C-alpha cells in the first residue's frame, strides 16, 4: 500500500503496461518531449523512446484515426486527447468509427484502443476548454466510457482498459490529478463497467463519479456531523452502466441524490434517476435529486465559474431535500 496521487497512479499504470506489453504505445500532442501538459507521461519519452511515445501534430482526427488503424493491426495504442474538449475535433472517429467498426463488419475488426481525455471545469479556462460532456459519449453503444474518482481505481481501470479488446474512452479529471489515495502495490486491475460503494451509509444514497466523488465525500463528512449517514456509489464507468450497487443501496436508503459535474439536461443524472425509478419504483420515498452544472457555457471569471459548478453546499442542500 502506498499513498500516491491520481497522476502517479495513472502514470504507473501506463508505465507498467508498457513494460509488460510491447504492443502498447502512446500517441498524442506533447506526450513526449514536453511530457504532457499534465505531466502524466513525464519521463516516458526518455525511457521508452520516440517510437513508443509519439508526439503528434495538432490533428485530433488523425490521432484517433491512426490509433484505430494501429489497433486494428493488433497493437494497443493509448491515444491522448490533451483535453476532452478536443474530442469534438475527433468526434466522428470516436463515435462513428471506433464505436462501430467491430459491429458493422460482423465482428471481424477488433480495436484494443484506449483514448485518454482530460476533462472538467473549474480552472478558468473558458467555455471551450472547461467541459464535462461525459454523458454524450456514453450515449453511443460500442464505446466504453470510464471515469475514475480515486487513484486506486484509476490505476486498476487504466490497466483493465489497456488490456481490453474494446475501444475505451478513459476520462481523467484535471483537478483530481493531485488528489492522493491509497493504492495497493503490484499489478492489479479493476473491472470495467462495475460501480462500487465508496462510502457506506444508511440514510441517503449519493450516486456520482469522477471529480464529484470528492465533492460528495466532503458533503457526506459535513452531513455525518449532523447524523446523516450518506452512502456513496461511484459509477466509475458510464457505459456499460452498472446499476446493481445503486439499486441495492437505494433499496436500503429509499433516497437518492445524483451528483455530476456536467450540465443537468440530458446528462448522467437523468439516466441514473430514470433507471432507479424503473428498477426500484416501490422503494422511492422522496423525489430523486440531481445536482449538476448550471446550464450555461462556463464563464472565465472565477466567481461566476464556481457559481455554475456543483459545490459541497449544493450537495448538502439536495441531500436535505430528500431526507
Amino acid at each position, binding site marked *: 500500500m502506498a499513498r500516491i496521487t491520481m497522476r502517479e497512479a495513472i502514470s504507473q499504470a501506463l508505465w507498467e503496461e508498457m513494460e509488460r506489453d510491447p504492443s502498447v504505445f502512446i500517441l498524442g500532442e506533447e506526450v513526449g518531449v514536453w511530457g504532457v501538459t499534465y505531466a502524466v507521461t513525464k519521463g516516458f519519452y526518455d525511457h521508452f523512446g520516440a517510437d513508443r511515445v509519439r508526439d503528434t501534430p495538432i490533428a485530433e482526427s488523425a490521432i484517433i484515426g491512426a490509433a484505430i488503424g*494501429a489497433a486494428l*493491426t493488433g497493437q494497443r495504442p493509448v491515444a491522448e486527447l490533451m483535453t476532452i474538449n478536443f474530442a469534438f475535433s475527433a468526434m466522428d472517429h470516436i463515435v462513428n468509427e471506433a464505436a462501430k467498426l467491430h459491429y458493422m463488419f460482423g*465482428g471481424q475488426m477488433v480495436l484494443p484502443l484506449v483514448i485518454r481525455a482530460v476533462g472538467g471545469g473549474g480552472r478558468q479556462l473558458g467555455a471551450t476548454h472547461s467541459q464535462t460532456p461525459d454523458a454524450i459519449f456514453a450515449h453511443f453503444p460500442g464505446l466504453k466510457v470510464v471515469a475514475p474518482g480515486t487513484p486506486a481505481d484509476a490505476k486498476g481501470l487504466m490497466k483493465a482498459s489497456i488490456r481490453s479488446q474494446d475501444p475505451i474512452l478513459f476520462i481523467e479529471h484535471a483537478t483530481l490529478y493531485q488528489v492522493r489515495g491509497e493504492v495497493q502495490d503490484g499489478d492489479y486491475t479493476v473491472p470495467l463497467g462495475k460501480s462500487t460503494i465508496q462510502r457506506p451509509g444508511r440514510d441517503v444514497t449519493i450516486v456520482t463519479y469522477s471529480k464529484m466523488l470528492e465533492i460528495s465525500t466532503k458533503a457526506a463528512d459535513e452531513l455525518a456531523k449532523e447524523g446523516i449517514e450518506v452512502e456513496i456509489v461511484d459509477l466509475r464507468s458510464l457505459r456499460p452502466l452498472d446499476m446493481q450497487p445503486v439499486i441495492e443501496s437505494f433499496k436500503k436508503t429509499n433516497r437518492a441524490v445524483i451528483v455530476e459535474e456536467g450540465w443537468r439536461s440530458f446528462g448522467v443524472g437523468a439516466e441514473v434517476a430514470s433507471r432507479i425509478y424503473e428498477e426500484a419504483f416501490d422503494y422511492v420515498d422522496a423525489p430523486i435529486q440531481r445536482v449538476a452544472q448550471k446550464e450555461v457555457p462556463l464563464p472565465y471569471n472565477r466567481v461566476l465559474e464556481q457559481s455554475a459548478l456543483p459545490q459541497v453546499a449544493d450537495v448538502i442542500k439536495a441531500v436535505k431535500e430528500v431526507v
Partner: protein
Amino acid sequence: MEKKDYLDLYYQMVLIRLVEEEAAVLYQQGKIGGFLHLYIGQEAVSTGLVAARKPQDRVITAYRDHGVAINCGISANEVLAELLGKVTGCSKGKGGSMHMADVTKNFWGGHAIVGAHLPIAAGLALGDQYAKNDGVTICMFGDGATNIGYFHEALNLSKVWKLPVLWVVENNQYGMGTAVDRASAVSEMRQKAEGYGMINARVDGMDVLAVKQAAAEALDYIRSGNGPYFLEAMTYRFRGHSMGDPERYRKQDEVKKWQENDPIGIYRSHLMTEGIATDAELDVLDDKAAEETRLAVQFAESSPEPAPEALWENVYVEN
C-alpha cells in the same frame, strides 16, 4: 506477367461488372436496401492496384467498395449475400453495400464517412511500421474526399512519420453532383500532394495495366522505406453516384464519350491486338463470369437471414 495473369485481370473486371449489373437489378426489385454505389467504369483502378500488391499489403477504401472487395478475393457469393443482408455475407449482413470487408484477405473495408478512412489507413500503416512489417497500406478515396479535413490530417501525418501508405485518389471527376472544379481549389488532385512535399504521379485509370505498373512502382518506393506516395487515377463512373441519381449535373454525351472508353473493352482489345488472347478465349471467360454471377445470386437469395440474436452480437468483444 504470364498469360494466366493477364486473363485473371480480365476475368476480375468482367466479374465485377456482371455482379454489379445484377446488383442493380436486385436493387430495382427491392431486394437490396440502403444506398448502392456502383463501381462500373472504374474497375481498372482497383483491379490494377490490387494486382500489384503483395499479400502483406492492406487495402482500404470508401463505400464504392464492391469491386475492390472482389479484387481482394471476396467471392461474388459473399458480396451479393452481403448486399442482400444475409448472414453469409462478408460482414454477416450487418454492413451492407458500403461496409464490406474481409480482414483475413487484408481488405479493411468499405467506409461510408467520406475521408474518415484516411486517418485509419495511416493507422494501419503505423501498425505495420511499429511492428516492423514490410506491408504497405493502399488507401483509395474519391476526388471529393480530398476536400475534407481528414484527408489533410492523414496525408500530413503520413509524411511526418514516413508511413508506408499509398494514397490513391480515384478522380472520377465528380463528388456526387459536384464537378471537381466546383469543390476543389485545384483540378489536378496530385497538386495537393505538393503541399505535403509528397512524391506523386498521375495514371490513366481506364488502363488496368498502366494502373498496375504505376502501383508497382509506388509500392516499391514505399516498401524501400521512403514514406508515403500519392497516386491519382483518372477515371469516370458510368452510372449515377448511387441508384436513383437524376444525373442532372452532367451531359449525356459526356457520359457516352467516356463509356466508349470502357476499361474492359480497352483491355480486351489490347489482349487481342497483342496476341495474348483470342476472342474465343475471352468469350469463355465472359461466360464463366456470367455463370459465377448467376450462381452467386442463387447463393445469396437462398442464404438465411441473420438470427434475431445477431442484433446483440459484436457490440463489444468483451461483455
